[in-house]
Each structure stands twice: as C-alpha cells, then as structure tokens.
C-alpha cells in the first residue's frame, strides 16, 4: 500500500518515495594492484595495505590514453539496467537527475546525452555538479519532486570518470605522493535508480535523505580542477586532497551523520540491519566502520573492488544491499564529500 509522509505543513502529508530498481556499470576489466604498481613504479603491497583497495575499473585505457567509455555511456548503461528491471516501465520516467563531478563536457550537460541514449525525450533533466555527495543530492532532489505530487516516477543517476585526470603519459618519476596516490585510489563507474511514489519492483522506501553543506570557513579537503584554453598549460595538480584533514574529519563527521539520521528517523542503532559507510578507500572505510560502531548491522561496501568512483558508489552499495535485503529490514547510508565538507546520507526500508 502507498504511504504518505508528514510534509511539515499543518497536518499535511506528501507522497512517500520508493526505490523500484537499481542498475550499475563498471568499465572494462578490473585493474589490480600489481598491474598498477608496475605501471606507476610503486610498491604493490603499499597499495594493498595503505589504501586497502584491490581493484578498480577505468573508462580510459591508461596505457594509450584512449577514451573507451564516456560518462554518458556508463550512465546510460547503468540507467538502462535500472529501466529494464521488473516493475519498471521506461515510459513512466517523468524526470532525470544526474550527480557527477566529472561531466563529459560543460555543455551540453551529460544528463541530456544520457537521456538521448536512453531514448527519453520531453522530460525535465537536472545535473548536479558534485563529488561524493552528488548521488545523495540527486536522491534528495528526486524525493522532493515526488513529494511535491507533481511527478510520480523519476530516474536518478550518479557517475564519475576520475580517469580523466589520471595521465600515465606524463613522467611520474618526480610526482608527489599526493599526485601518485590518485592513481590507486580512484576508479570510474556509474549507477542509477528508478524512484516512484508507490512500492514497485524492489519496494524499498527511501525514508530519509540528508544533504547539508557544513564547510563554512573551512579549506576544501579535495579539489578537482578544470582547465580551459586560457589556463590549460598552468602547472596545477588536477586532483588533490588534504589527506590529513580527511583522515581527521571524515570519521567524526560520519558518526555525527549516523546519529543525526537515526534521530530524525526515531530509529535505534540496533534497528539497523545494514550499514553503508562512506567509500573512500578499502582501508579508510574499514576504519570509519569501526568508529561508526554498529556491530549488529552488516556492512555493505564496494570500494575495495571498485575503487573510489565517486557518485557511482551509493548505487553500487545499494545494488549489493538489495541482493540481501528482506522485507522489513532497514539500512542506513553515510556519505561525506570532503571538497567543501558536505554531510550526506539516506535511509532505506524494504516494505512488504
């Protein structure tokens, strides 16, 4: 049965939001640490132990620099799977929201190429420029649109091609560790979900979404540059992180997000059947999960196999979650975008 949720107005309710299906896409074969270590001239065991990520996928052929899949290709593949799932009809899609930090071009927005590849037309499209919180932001926008009552079904997509900034053609012998580490941390991929105003397909209710900027006065923890004709020769590192700040802040923020979401939902930590922690790297995710300290919930992570592929991660986690989730079970996801310190998360509950 379709539920409603309180919308904050006097006694008012608005349609609840359900996740009907999910689809994901990872480009090409998995690249393991030995292959990467040999190419980069670094120690493979270091990647394994320090980063804790075992494999990742790249849309770009790192040896030749050839682009094999665009972001639009990956997003369309993931969305195509979500649209082909049982209980979903592509003709029902009334809007599309894409979250990404690495669009193919600034114009047209990649979301429109995705719509084109999917054969969707005459629908509103939105693209959110965002890093690790983008997928959650897309869920938030979609939930608000469905809650408005104006739309009943929408397609939410998240994806990134981080390899756009991984250039193996240049001489890396003098590269700073903070530059080299990007090659082993990141990967490419995309994910998508169909959201509806009634339980269909997977029948998973989207109970809560958190998306909040908390970076007032704080230096960015991560910066991804973009270069134009006038500044493309400037010697700036394209992708850089403040690892000290990330290591210090992200675990603390993750715990705050967990408890804030539980409070909003009036759930207890023991009520959680699954926990979807932030996916920075295999090792960082392990450390954060320990600090989240919800031993009764089963961890659902993917980063050790997929690499950090940004906005694809929550969908990859949801896909793994849905393989296990049974009626009445609850899951909570925590995501943090360290660029300008955005807190994000969401809660799911499988309805009967």
């Amino acid at each position, binding site marked *: 049965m379709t539920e409603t949720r309180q919308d904050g107005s006097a006694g008012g309710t608005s349609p609840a939001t359900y996740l009907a299906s999910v689809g994901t896409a990872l480009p090409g074969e998995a690249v393991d640490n030995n292959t990467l270590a040999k190419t980069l001239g670094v120690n493979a065991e270091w990647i394994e132990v*320090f980063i804790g990520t075992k494999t990742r996928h790249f849309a770009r052929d790192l040896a030749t620099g050839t682009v094999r899949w665009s972001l639009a290709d990956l997003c369309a593949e993931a969305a195509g799977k979500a649209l082909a799932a049982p209980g979903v009809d592509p003709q029902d899609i009334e809007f599309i929201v894409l979250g990404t930090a690495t669009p193919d071009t600034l114009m047209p927005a990649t979301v429109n190429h995705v719509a084109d590849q999917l054969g969707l037309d005459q629908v509103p499209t939105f693209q959110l420029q965002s890093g690790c919180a983008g997928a959650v932001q897309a869920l938030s926008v979609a939930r608000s649109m469905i809650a408005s009552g104006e739309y009943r079904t929408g397609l939410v997509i998240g994806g990134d091609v981080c390899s756009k900034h991984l250039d193996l053609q240049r001489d890396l012998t003098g590269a700073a560790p903070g530059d080299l580490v990007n090659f082993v941390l990141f990967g490419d991929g995309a994910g998508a979900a169909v959201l509806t105003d009634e339980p269909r397909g997977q029948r998973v209710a989207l109970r809560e979404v958190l998306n909040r900027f908390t970076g007032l006065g704080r230096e960015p923890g991560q910066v991804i540059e973009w270069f134009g004709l006038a500044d493309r020769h400037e010697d700036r590192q394209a992708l850089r992180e403040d690892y000290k700040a990330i290591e210090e802040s992200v675990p603390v923020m993750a715990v705050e997000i967990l408890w804030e979401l539980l409070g909003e939902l009036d759930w207890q930590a023991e009520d959680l059947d699954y926990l979807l922690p932030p996916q920075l790297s295999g090792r960082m995710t392990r450390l954060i999960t320990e600090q989240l300290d919800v031993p009764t919930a089963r961890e659902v992570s993917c980063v050790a196999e997929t690499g950090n592929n940004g906005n694809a991660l929550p969908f990859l986690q949801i896909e793994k979650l849905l393989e296990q989730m049974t009626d009445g079970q609850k899951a909570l996801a925590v995501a943090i975008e360290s660029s300008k310190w955005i807190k994000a998360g969401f809660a799911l509950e499988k309805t009967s």
Partner: protein
Amino acid sequence: MTISSTDGFTLEHFTHLVQDELGLPVTEGQLSTDFDELPDWDSLHLLKLVTALEPAAGRSVPVGRVLEARSLKEIYDLAVSG
C-alpha cells in the same frame, strides 16, 4: 657518523634517501621524532619511501609494520632487520 648499519645501508644513507626521495629536510637527529611532531610529515610520504627503500636496503620491507611505525628510525630498523 653513524654506526647502525646492515649490509652497508647506514642511517646516513637512509637520511639522504628521505631527503632526496621525499624532499624532506630531515637531519639524522630527527629520525627518532614521532611523526606527529615531524615538520611537514604526511603519511602519504610512505608511498615513495617504501618504494625507494627496498632497492636501497637490498631487501624486502614489511609494509604492514612500516605503516605502524611512529618514526623514521623505526622504519629504518624494519628495513635493515625485517
């Protein structure tokens, strides 16, 4: 001049390696300083250090234990004694 050495890989060699590979102006006297107190130290430096250490020391380095080390001296000890 230092004294600790195994197979010729001395603390002096190690100090030069740290200076050259990491670009950190550390002195031999700072090798035992805790990483939290070492100016400009970043755990990412271990990527380059571990990679450079094995050929210099002439033996494989126990990476897991290196990551637990609290000072450059501890890493040197692991590199020469395993």
